Every structure is written in structure tokens, then in C-alpha cells.
């Protein structure tokens, strides 16, 4: 029996097609797995079904009847619940309050029925008895809980809605073995009751342990659906890779310097929020790529090395000298550069002229107190020209530029005084193709001039085309290193979906 059916559902953000003409059928009593690489559209699809994103076109049918889902509240009333990957918990409220937040049991219509609230929470928490760990109780405040415990609360919250369709978007990422096993027992029980479950995970072993059918999404399009029993991990990865396959491993000219080249950056057993025990070396002249699915610790490692979120353990050496990433100011002075893909929040100084957006790093490194605009302009121009930045004048506001040119300005900041190491944190997010080509050409040139470069790119093609070596992250740790001809899309996806 078909429980949920999507007919030609589409969603675009500006020019980017997040989902185009998606058709999907979810049966009652099945666990339906969604797979795809970063930005393939699985989260967009989930959010459309859960009502937090409105589709541009297409229809959704529940039990064969078309329904309009206007928001999260409306999705709930249609019997659809979702576990949000980024969680939807109120940090200062208790576990019991969070579980029933949207449907607080009441007395006389206005008062919170505390007994019913606790009774309800207790009933669902009992499902995880014995695996929740210390400090997990009805009146524990979310803020005081560990990451895995918060994730359990979000799971319980989704279960407590007693919906007929439940979406779990990366619900197991922080859970330990025992917790995952208990969670799967619960899912199997729900299946028995005829509930439909949409399951998104980046662990292939989990997908094969719990899934009934799997649908692969690539570039916003549904590639196909397979019965888990009739398929294999390699077939699924091949579907995710699509036509590209080995051809994509194109004979990337091996830029990588020989093993004799000096180390620019050496990282040993680095640990911090969101990652642990990360070790790697970057040679001078090398572009080291960070790959894997979103949020597996790549950004966190780069931010830690820049001192923006200092690491809690491990050691770092820059040019053979020990380095303590205490804060960004110190790192800038030591010659570490960091460029974020989130230009609006972590890159440009909005509302200020282009010149002022290029100069701050130079001023800091030169310990400059008084700025001389013409002298600044003489320094800024070559840096901007090296990047082929298109702008009308240095005095124009940064907002007058396109996204790609804004990002070039942000990178130009670091070119006046050359840093020893350049950390690129998904630098091409939302940038047009020609600007991307310019950026990567420059990055390669900087590497050839002897800079050590670490590149995290969420678009796999960028990584495969530009990185000399790729470290694949999963669950906050490096799972595999891809070098030479092993740098293929297939290997990248396989490592990204490998058991943590």
C-alpha cells in the first residue's frame, strides 16, 4: 500500500535547482532510505514533506489523496513527523518539555498539565532505557546533555508525535553502537505497526541493516529505487556516481610535490568540538583536499587551525615550529590564512568600500595604526588584479559586487603579505562558474609558489579536479586518504559512506 507519494516535486533556490521533478513512493510499513552526495537534495526533499520548505511545483499525496502542507504544524496534523539533522530543541527547557513542546498537554485549556507531560515523556524515554547514559532524566535541561543524549531527545520528540510518516535525517550521527541498535529495534516495531519511515544516514552498514528500499538522488533528481535485499553497496555507490564513474578520475596532472618538499603544516592528533585525533601533513606547494559529507568535522578542523574555535588537544607545527592556535589574531600574524565560504557572515565587511575590505589583514600584520589611503590602494590593486576581480573602483561598496567578485576581494586580503598556509573552507559556495575557475587557477598558482593549501569543498567535482590528495572525513575523523589515481568519485563516496 502506498502511504506517501510525491509527484514532480520541484524546488529551486535562485538559479540552483535543489530538487527537480522528484517522484517518490513510500509504502506503509517500510524503511525507505534516501542516499546522495552533498547538496543532492535529500534534505530539501525531507523538509518539503515536513512542511518547513514549500515546494515550487508538484503534488504530495497521502493515502492517495492530494494534500497541501503549509507548515510544520500542518505536516503534524497530516501525521508527518521529522527528526531534524540540526535538531529543533529548546536549550533551556527540560527533556520532558521538549518532547511535548508543540502539543503541551493542558488543564482547562491554558495550564500545562505537568503530570501528563511527565507521564508522556516517561513512556517514550522507557524505549531507550539502559542506553541513555548518566544525567539523562525527565527534568534534565537540554543544555546539560551530551550530543548523543540531545539526539535521543530529538528522536523521542519525533516518535511522540505518533505520526504515520516519520523522517529521520541523519538521526544516528552522534549515537553509539548500543543506542543505534535500540533505535533500530524501535524502528522495526514501528514498521510492524504499518508506519512509514524515511531514513537518511551516511553509514552504509546502517542502511543495509535497517532499510527495505533505497532511493538514490543525484543533483536534485531521483536516479532510481532499489530493494535493499537485491542490491549491494557498490551498486548504490555506482548509482550515486552516475555516468561519471572512472572517467572522472581524469588523469589529473600530478602536481603534488615530491616527498622531499618541506612541510608547510604538520598536524598531530588534533581534537576539538566535532572532531578528534586528526593527523595530517601539508607540504609546500601541495593542495590537500578535505572530503566527505557535510559537517563531518572538515570545517571544524580548519576553524580550529585558524584559532577561531581553538582545538582542545593535539599539536600543530608551522614550518617546523610549534604553533598554538589560540585566536585568529595570533594565527594571522604567524602566517595562517583562512577563507570561509560563508561570505556574508564570515567574509566581507558589509556596507564598507572594497578598499577597506582588502586591507585589514595587512594592517594587522604590519601592526599599522594610521592608514594612508593612496598607499593602501597601491597595495590593494595588484592583489585584486591577480585574481582578475571586476570592480568599478576601490571606493565602491563591497555589496556592489557579485558573489564571486566579493569572494575574490576576501581572498585578495591574504595576498598582500603572503601567508605560509592557506585554509579554504568551502570557498566557492554560491559562486558562478567562471569565478570558480579563476579562483582555482589562482589557488594552484599560489601552491606552485610554495604555499601549503588545505581545501575543503562540499562539491566533490571541485575536490577531485583540484586536490593533490584527499582526506575523507566521516564522524569527525579521517577515514581514508585518496592519492593519485585513487582519487575517484566512487572511492570518495564509498569512503564517505563507510562505517564510522
Amino acid at each position: 500500500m502506498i502511504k506517501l507519494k510525491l509527484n514532480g516535486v520541484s524546488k529551486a533556490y535562485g538559479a540552483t535547482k535543489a530538487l527537480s521533478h522528484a517522484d517518490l513512493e513510500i509504502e506503509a510499513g517500510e524503511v525507505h532510505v534516501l542516499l546522495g552526495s552533498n547538496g543532492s537534495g535529500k534534505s530539501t526533499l525531507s523538509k518539503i514533506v515536513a512542511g518547513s520548505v514549500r515546494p515550487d511545483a508538484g503534488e504530495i499525496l497521502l493515502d492517495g489523496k492530494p494534500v497541501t502542507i503549509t507548515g510544520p504544524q500542518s505536516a503534524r496534523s497530516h501525521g508527518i513527523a521529522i527528526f531534524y539533522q540540526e535538531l529543533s530543541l529548546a536549550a533551556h527547557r527540560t527533556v520532558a518539555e521538549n518532547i511535548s513542546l508543540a502539543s503541551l498537554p493542558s488543564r482547562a485549556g491554558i495550564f500545562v498539565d505537568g503530570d501528563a507531560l511527565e507521564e508522556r515523556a516517561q513512556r517514550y524515554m522507557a524505549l531507550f532505557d539502559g542506553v541513555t547514559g548518566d544525567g539523562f532524566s525527565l527534568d534534565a535541561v537540554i543544555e546539560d546533555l551530551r550530543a548523543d543524549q540531545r539526539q535521543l531527545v530529538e528522536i523521542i520528540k519525533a516518535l511522540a508525535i505518533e505520526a504515520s510518516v516519520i523522517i529521520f535525517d541523519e538521526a544516528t550521527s552522534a549515537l553509539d553502537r548500543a543506542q543505534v541498535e535500540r533505535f533500530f529495534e524501535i524502528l522495526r516495531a514501528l514498521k510492524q505497526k504499518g508506519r512509514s519511515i524515511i531514513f537518511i544516514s551516511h553509514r552504509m552498514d546502517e542502511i543495509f541493516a535497517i532499510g527495505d528500499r533505497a532511493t538514490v538522488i543525484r543533483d536534485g533528481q531521483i536516479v532510481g529505487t532499489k530493494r535493499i535485499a537485491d542490491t549491494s553497496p557498490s551498486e548504490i555507490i555506482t548509482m550515486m556516481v552516475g555516468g561519471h564513474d572512472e572517467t572522472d578520475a581524469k588523469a589529473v596532472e600530478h602536481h603534488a610535490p615530491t616527498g622531499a618538499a618541506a612541510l608547510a603544516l604538520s598536524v598531530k592528533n588534533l581534537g576539538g568540538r566535532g572532531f578528534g585525533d586528526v593527523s595530517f601533513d601539508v607540504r609546500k606547494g601541495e593542495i590537500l583536499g578535505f572530503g566527505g559529507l557535510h559537517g563531518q568535522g572538515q570545517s571544524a578542523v580548519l576553524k580550529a587551525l585558524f584559532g577561531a574555535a581553538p582545538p582542545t588537544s593535539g599539536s600543530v607545527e608551522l614550518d617546523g615550529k610549534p604553533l598554538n592556535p589560540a585566536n585568529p589574531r595570533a594565527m594571522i600574524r604567524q602566517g595562517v590564512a583562512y577563507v570561509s565560504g560563508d561570505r556574508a557572515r564570515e567574509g566581507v565587511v558589509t556596507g564598507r568600500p572594497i578598499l577597506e575590505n582588502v586591507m585589514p589583514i595587512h594592517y594587522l600584520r604590519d601592526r599599522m595604526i594610521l592608514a594612508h589611503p593612496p598607499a593602501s590602494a597601491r597595495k590593494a590593486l595588484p592583489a585584486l588584479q591577480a585574481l582578475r576581480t571586476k570592480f568599478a573602483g576601490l571606493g565602491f561598496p563591497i555589496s556592489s559586487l557579485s558573489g564571486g567578485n566579493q569572494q575574490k576581494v576576501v581572498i585578495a586580503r591574504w595576498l598582500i603579505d603572503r601567508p605560509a598556509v592557506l585554509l579554504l573552507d568551502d570557498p566557492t559556495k554560491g559562486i558562478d562558474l567562471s569565478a570558480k575557475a579563476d579562483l582555482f587557477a589562482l589557488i594552484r598558482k599560489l601552491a606552485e609558489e610554495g604555499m601549503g593549501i588545505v581545501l575543503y569543498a562540499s562539491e566533490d567535482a571541485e575536490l577531485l579536479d583540484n586536490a593533490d590528495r584527499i582526506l575523507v572525513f566521516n564522524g569527525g575523523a579521517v577515514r581514508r586518504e585518496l592519492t593519485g589515481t585513487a582519487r575517484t568519485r566512487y572511492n570518495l563516496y564509498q569512503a564517505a559512506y563507510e562505517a564510522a
Partner: protein
Amino acid sequence: MTMASAPARPQSRSALKRTFERYPFLPALIILVVLIVLNGWFQPRSLSFVGITGLIKTYLALMLLAVAQTYVIYAGDIDLSAGAIVSLVNVVVVGFMAQWGGDGLTILAALGLGLATGLACGLVNGIVVAALRLQAIVATFATSIFFTGLALYIQPVAGTPAPTLFWRTYGGRILDIPFVFYVVVAFAILLVVLVRTRLTLRLLAVGDGQQEAFQSGLPVTAVRIGGYALCGVFAALAAFCITGDTASGDPLVGGKMTLFSIAAVVLGGSALAGGYGTVVGSVIGALIIGFINSLVFFVGTPSEWQNLVQGLAILLALMAGVLVGRGARA
């Protein structure tokens, strides 16, 4: 009750931490006790029955307004028009009573009208901020000017007297107990009732994160409007107390109370960012401001230095609150 479930942590330390987390107004309470002792030290009569009654009479309005502000701040919003609502309700009530006579029935009708005015102002704020999505600080600053303008239109100058029956009742005694004590008891009961409502919990959840609350299926816009509406009603109650205390109408009476009400909320340990706090803390915060003002007077500060000393004392109280709270929670 939860301490038993956290055996991993050292018991005493964790118990202290939990107590402070559960009752974020404890640092404020400690400061209040210190201030009360100091007041008694410098002026023993200030702690007499008459002295306390007088202090409550004067600061009941600020306590109510601090509570009003708390509900808005719970949701991560702010209301810069709270004081202007007090002024508007004050002139509406006094004007109505002056127009229709000062008998008991008219007074009750005037109070009803005052509550409706406060509620209407709160709804306007809520719609402007939550439904039209304007910045709370600027939008309520604008509505504060608008409400003040309305008040000035209704009563261009201060001085219209309130009926004798009204202020005599507020300042008088029933069964030998000052009337304000009945008000305090009613106020306390109202707060206890409100703490248990779904609206309070939802306001706090919205303050913890609007996106999360929306994705959980909460009606975020309606909840925020509810917070402003509640704020308007409490501002009206504050206006009643001011009217009883000053016995007259004044179109600018509440203006300077707005920032004091916000200071009281912060002194009481609530987070301006929302999601965390208590109304009891705000009441204590208002009392701290009251006792600081009377202490500055009792130690004999020359009049030209009083504002400066008051300001410094409030800063000190804020710092002490932060330090005590941080020390206990560390």
C-alpha cells in the same frame, strides 16, 4: 530530585550548581538581602512596617512593569514602549474618572477600560514586531512615541486629579492591613497561575530559538504576540498602581520607567537573549532598584550626587549578580 540521577558528579558541587540553574534569581536575592540589611543599618526606621509599606507603595508599579517586560524578554523580544503604555493607561483612567465622576462603579469601569487599553497597545506591538517582522527595538521605540502622543492628546498637561475614593483606597487600609498588601498577594497569586500556563512555556521555547520552535510546530508569531499582549496588560496594572500612588494623571509619568524595567529583568537573572529567566527575579530586580534609591538617600548623599551614586550602585549590583552566578555555576 534529579541529583540522584547524576552520581558521576561530586554531589555538593553539582547540587549548588543545579540550585543556581533552577533558581537564576538567587544572586539577585542575595544582593537584595544585603541591601535590606544596609538600609536597616543606616536608617532602622526604613525597615519598620510603615517604611516597608511606603517602599512597596512606591515600587509596586515598577515591579509590575518589570514582570510585564519579562514576558516579552522570555521570547527574545523587547518592549521599549512599556513605560509609554503606563502613561497612556494612566491618563485614560484618570480622564475617564474625571469625566464620569468618582463613584465606585465608574472607577471599576475606568479600570476595565485601562486594561483594554493596555491589551490593545500590547497587541499593536505584537503585530508590528511578530507579524510584520520589524526589529523589536526600533518598532517598539516608534510605538512608544505614538502611545506618548496619544497620551498627550488625551491630557496635554499633568495634574488632573484622580477621584479621592481611588487614591484613598490604594493608600488606605482594609481590616487594619494596608491595601497594597492585598495587591501584593493578588499579584503573587497571578504570577503563580501564569507560571503554569502553556503560554509561558511556549514563550521561553520561542526565546530559545525561533527556527527550532517553528520547526517543532509551535505557532511562533501567535506566541510572540501573546507575550506582548501580556506585557500590555501588566503595564496597565502598573499604571493603576502609579495612579493610586500619585493620585493624578500625567502623560509622561511612565516614560522613564521603561529602561528601569529592563534593568530589573536583567538584575533578576533573566537572559536578554530570551529563553531563560523567572518573573520572581524581575520582581527582586525592581526591589533592588528601589532599595538602592532609598539607600542612596539614607546615607545622606548630597542631592547633586544622587544620580551618579544610583547609577554606580546599579552597575555594582549587576556585576555582583554576574559574579555570584558565574561562581556558583562554574
